């Protein structure tokens, strides 16, 4: 029987020897189909283009093509002075502009040796963590919509609106803030901001629970994500993954702890790593869980910061900003934990100019996306959508 089975298997391939056996197969060409996904596709989160080689519904290989949103950030950065780069940084990961500003400013400050007022540090962490929650809400919401659940998406955006209002109130802009400046912050918090933020934290906790019940514990959602897009920890590290993606693979790595920048070492929060009880470690569900848990942790951080933040009347947040930002000669790499992972800036200064000689951005989404080929091999098209959603790319940062 086994012999027969083997012979049958061989006959599928059309070779000259078995010509007389598979006449029908010869007329039916059964090659793979190239399926172009994107750049205009609802679930590529922007203008990502995937060239999928498909065999029926199974994706044999998915090759990402980038560059549809390339805006020459690095070249622009060489053309403007340091404070002028901040608005460009805003536009990289447009869902987490505060965090981008934060990463860029602490990088330049490393070259500058400026003393940052303590209140400014707290303000920075508060706005960055608010923005982290907002960004994770978009990630979770769009992930839900990728899997066909429309309502969680709108719930997420409803709650995100409150955060955008808060940030707009203090910075004047809804998405692209230009709020965290090198050596300071643009404006002090308006009167009542602390109270409003505390109210928001109180409002958001039950909403996060509602989201968990509606989406995370939904059986269909778990079925669609559990065990899909598995990424072992060692491979994830080799690909240079960071942020929720790496933690989803079970690696306890958070730059807020590892690098201990700003006032993070003073705060009490834990690094969210899934324990493998609800999800298989390294799958799409783990990555989703990390984001959901991180929102809770960010709420804790905000609460602590609001409590610990020193109050000063007539505080000038711009006091520490140097008149002319001209860093000493040298090079520096600074990084911060963004909602999507490690955002790093490599800056080279010649010590004479007010403009950087070279400014390179290490984008977290770009690095996370690089594992697409590995993740997509042999997956179904719906699973491919699920995987892209779990990577949580923002094409503005991928292409810069």
């Amino acid at each position: 029987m086994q012999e027969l089975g083997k012979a049958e298997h061989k006959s599928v391939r059309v070779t000259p020897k078995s010509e007389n056996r598979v006449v029908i197969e010869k007329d039916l060409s059964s090659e793979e189909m190239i399926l172009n996904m994107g750049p205009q596709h609802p679930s590529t989160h922007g203008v990502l283009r995937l060239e999928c080689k498909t065999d029926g519904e199974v994706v044999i290989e998915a090759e990402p093509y980038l560059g549809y949103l390339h805006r020459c950030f690095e070249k622009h950065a060489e053309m403007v002075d340091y404070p002028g780069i901040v608005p460009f940084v805003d536009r990289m990961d447009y869902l987490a502009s505060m965090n981008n500003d934060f990463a860029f400013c602490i990088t330049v400050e490393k070259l500058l040796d400026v003393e940052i007022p303590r209140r400014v540090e707290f303000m920075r962490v508060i706005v960055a963590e608010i923005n982290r929650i907002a960004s994770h809400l978009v990630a979770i919401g769009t992930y839900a919509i990728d899997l066909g659940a429309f309502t969680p998406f709108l719930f997420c955006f409803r709650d995100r609106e409150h955060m955008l209002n808060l940030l707009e109130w203090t910075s004047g802009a809804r998405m692209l803030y230009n709020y965290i400046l090198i050596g300071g912050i643009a404006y002090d918090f308006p009167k009542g901001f602390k109270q409003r933020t505390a109210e928001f934290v109180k409002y958001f906790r039950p909403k996060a629970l509602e989201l968990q019940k509606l989406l995370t514990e939904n059986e269909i959602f778990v079925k669609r994500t559990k065990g899909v897009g598995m990424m072992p920890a060692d491979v994830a590290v080799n690909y240079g993954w960071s942020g929720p993606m790496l933690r989803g693979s079970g690696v306890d790595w958070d730059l807020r702890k590892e690098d201990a920048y700003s006032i993070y070492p003073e705060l009490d929060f834990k690094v969210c790593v899934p324990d493998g009880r609800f999800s298989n470690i390294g799958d799409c569900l783990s990555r989703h869980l990390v984001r959901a848990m991180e929102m809770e942790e960010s709420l804790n951080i905000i609460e602590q910061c609001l409590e610990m933040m020193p109050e000063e009347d007539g505080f000038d947040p711009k006091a520490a900003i140097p008149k002319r930002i001209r860093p000493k000669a040298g090079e520096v790499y600074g990084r911060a934990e963004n909602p999507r992972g490690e955002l790093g800036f490599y800056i080279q200064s010649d010590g004479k100019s007010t403009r950087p000689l070279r400014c390179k951005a290490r984008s977290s989404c770009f690095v996370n996306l690089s594992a697409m080929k590995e993740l997509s091999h042999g997956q179904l098209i719906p699973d491919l959508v699920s995987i892209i959603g779990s990577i949580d790319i923002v094409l503005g940062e991928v292409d810069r």
Partner: protein
Amino acid sequence: MSTGALLPNSFPFVMSTSLNTWSDALSELYLFGLPFGLIIIAAIPLVFIALYALTYGVYGERKISAFMQDRLGPMEVGKWGILQTLADILKLLQKEDIVNKSADKFLFVIGPGILFVGAFLAFAVLPFGPAFIGADLNVGLFYAIGIVALEVVGILAAGWGSNNKWALYGAIRSVAQIVSYEIPAAIAILCGAMMAGTLSMQQFNLLQQGEYGFLHFFLFQNPIAWLPFIIYFIASLAETNRAPFDIPEAESELVAGYFTEYTGMKFAVIFLAEYGSMFMVSAIISIVFLGGWNSPLPNIGPLSLNDWTTGPVWGAFWIVMKGFFFIFVQMWLRWTLPRLRVDQLMHLCWKVLTPFAFVAFVLIAVWEVYVK
């Protein structure tokens, strides 16, 4: 078109002499030698589909989804946005009717037509109350299931004719899904047919008539009837491509599935067909298990609620309301649940629903033969 001849002699209830009177009278109406009444009979379901799709299907769904999602929904056109659907139709009418250069023109054009015809023909055997039915066939239920399956041809024609890979994926998924889910759906319906002993739609209704209202419905007449009821409801979701089985038109995967390339009125016709078949499956489930046009209210002592709410107009009211209730549940599910994957869908059909449908079939057969 007399129904008396179709009924068995041992029919348990007093045969209502007013059955199908309106449609019978209409079918004998001739004007200038033309069967004008027959045209009216055909036009009534058509007008009904159009009106219900406009009001409840589009506007209602948008408002219901808005209610569930904590937002307002359409508010701009008219008071509370009631004219929104009208604006949508005007927009669709103005749209350019694009046919791809590379499309198979014949299939592309005929696809939505077949789809709509399949959905619309089923309405011929749908009783809009005790006095009105297009054609009281003695195989009405069988006909309805069969003719709705015609939609598969339309979907395949639309998907293949579009010459678009995404549309083709949608069409193939859709055909696989609808053909698969017809099996548990048909077996579940067969359970109802066993309880009734007939396939005629009007007789289904008559058999569930009685002074105790909902207690006479087949769902409450048999202890296992809830099983085929649930199976048919789930399968009907899949057959009409509604969430969580909206895999053929999964907007986040396949953009729009088999109708990706359609514009303007062709697109509208596809939607009309979808809403038509949504109502059809809802009507079938309410006829087979929930008494169709019979009032669910029981007579309680001197309050003869059932008698007061029975009649041709009340019948139309009840069947439409029951249908709308199931459509509401369909919408509710759509705005709550994520989408299943293709293989999970097939797993649910072949390994869960079909075996359970067989179990229900056997149990109900045993009950009907030995217990009742």
